[in-house]
């Protein structure tokens, strides 16, 4: 195991975060705060409680997930795409590093950033609404699992993309709509039965449901299903990445 290489990639990526602090941390925090103001305070004040909690409090897990999902993908995809774009990927490919170590460095850094961001948003939410986390350990498990899984997904997008348009396409056209429709701002139970069935096809529903359960013990689906679906997506991402490195897809040919 080339620990020093993993550390070098990890610190390099983290250094980029501190260099672009406004874009990496401040911007998502500001936009999430605006969600709290608009949906929590302005609109939420006119909505009665959802599943026994105030609307402002109810949307906190969904909003954190929204940021963690999008930022995990953005961080990891940009992290590997940029060296491809500027050509510095040659150094990674010619170094004595295994594929696993490359992924560990890039995905580890992207997930770390997302987790830090998620925790900052959680702290920010505490300024707007009263918060009580029933299962803090499960909350962290879901946060870490989601950050890692979607960083892996972002890594795949970064390898696949051969232009900035493609880099943005999946996050904007697929992930963001799925997150909004995945129960960030509502309970899936609030949907008509037919639409509820459709919503259950959305993998993000399971992430948000599990994460919300760790806060309020309110869930659209059972905890085991949430964990199972998250792990299933994690495994799928690992299999795809393994194939990418085995074949050299968009990297070595």
């Amino acid at each position: 195991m080339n620990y020093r290489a993993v550390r070098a990639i990890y610190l390099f990526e983290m250094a980029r975060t501190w260099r672009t602090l406004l874009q990496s941390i401040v911007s998502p925090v500001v936009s999430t705060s605006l969600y709290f103001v608009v949906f929590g305070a302005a609109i939420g004040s006119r909505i009665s409680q959802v599943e026994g909690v105030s609307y402002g409090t109810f949307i906190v897990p969904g909003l954190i997930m929204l940021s963690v999902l999008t930022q995990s993908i953005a961080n990891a995809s940009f992290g590997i795409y940029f060296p491809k774009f500027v050509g510095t990927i040659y150094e990674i490919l010619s170094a004595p590093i295994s594929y696993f170590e490359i992924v560990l460095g890039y995905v580890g850094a992207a997930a770390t950033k997302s987790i830090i961001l998620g925790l900052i948003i959680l702290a920010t939410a505490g300024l707007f609404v009263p918060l009580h986390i029933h299962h803090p350990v499960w909350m962290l498990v879901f946060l870490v699992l989601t950050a890692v899984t979607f960083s892996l997904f972002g890594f795949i997008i970064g390898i696949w993309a051969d232009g900035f348009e493609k880099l943005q396409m999946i996050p904007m056209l697929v992930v963001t709509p799925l997150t909004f429709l995945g129960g960030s701002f509502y309970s899936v139970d609030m949907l008509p039965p037919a639409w509820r069935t459709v919503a259950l096809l959305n993998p993000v529903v399971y992430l948000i449901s599990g994460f919300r359960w760790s806060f309020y013990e309110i869930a659209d689906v059972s905890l085991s299903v949430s964990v199972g679906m998250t792990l299933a997506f994690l495994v799928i991402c690992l299999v795809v990445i393994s194939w990418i490195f085995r074949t050299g897809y968009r990297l070595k040919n």
Partner: protein
Amino acid sequence: MAFLSQGSAVPPLPGRVPAPFPNPPAIMSSIISVANLSKTYGSGFKALKNVNLDIKRGEIFALLGPNGAGKTTLISIICGIANPSEGKVLVGGENIQTSYRKARSLIGLVPQELHTDAFESVWATVSFSRGLFGKPKNPAHIEKVLKDLSLWDKKDNKIITLSGGMKRRVMIAKALSHEPQILFLDEPTAGVDVELRKGMWEVVRTLQQSGVTIILTTHYIEEAEEMADRIGVINKGEIVLVEDKATLMQKLGKKRLTLHLQGKLSTLPESLSPYKLDLCDSGATLIYDYDTKGERTGITSLLGDLRTAGIRFNDLDTTQSSLEDIFVDLVRAS
């Protein structure tokens, strides 16, 4: 250049029994061995066709070839950037695919394009490269590398602020950061001015003196002629020739005798036709090309026949054909 000194001793690779004497025959053998290497891209383009090549430890090997000949593809495969379609490559006796960690740790690569992290400082990017190769931090080594490449006063500058020549040196510093035994220089002096180019040659020579094996590709034939111990010519994905530079020059080199005549000639006498002379400069100059390989150059008899024909000259000079001439001839022939 103190940082170069570690390349002179070749440490035994892990898992290997140290040799019983300081300079075993293996050390004098190939440090890179390429066997039956082929590369076909997805488009069907065959970039390399059954390439066989051995690079000797400690030499400067110049790989020459026109654009698209396969130089960069060959380097990319050896360094792990591209996958081969067929064939085997050993670096320091280690297979680049099955024993890639050991093989790659011996290599430093300076690619043709200036690929740099624009917003990183020089110090950070060179240190990053050392970390990638699994080496522990060694600020003293990085400092020496930067000083030897005249980059020390720029160590805190962002790379985006540096000139093209400095960026090229940063890339060399990155390649040397992990103390490699083999250095690949892919067009190292492309686009740099004459002064900097000569400075780079000096760096390369010093590296070689410290025991580093250097493989360079270049479009500047003058560069290969100046520096290389051996020359390889590649064209259309095939190695056309590998030869010691001196032998190559001797084997394929031609000399030219130029005679500056006292009076202009309109035609040459029939008696001189066997010499295949060229009459140039409106009849004021005679040119005679001869082969240095031959036992007889024909110069003595030519001068005698000229005297007999009553042709006198003021001056004469001879020139050796350059490596460039040889290269052009080889590529055309292949």
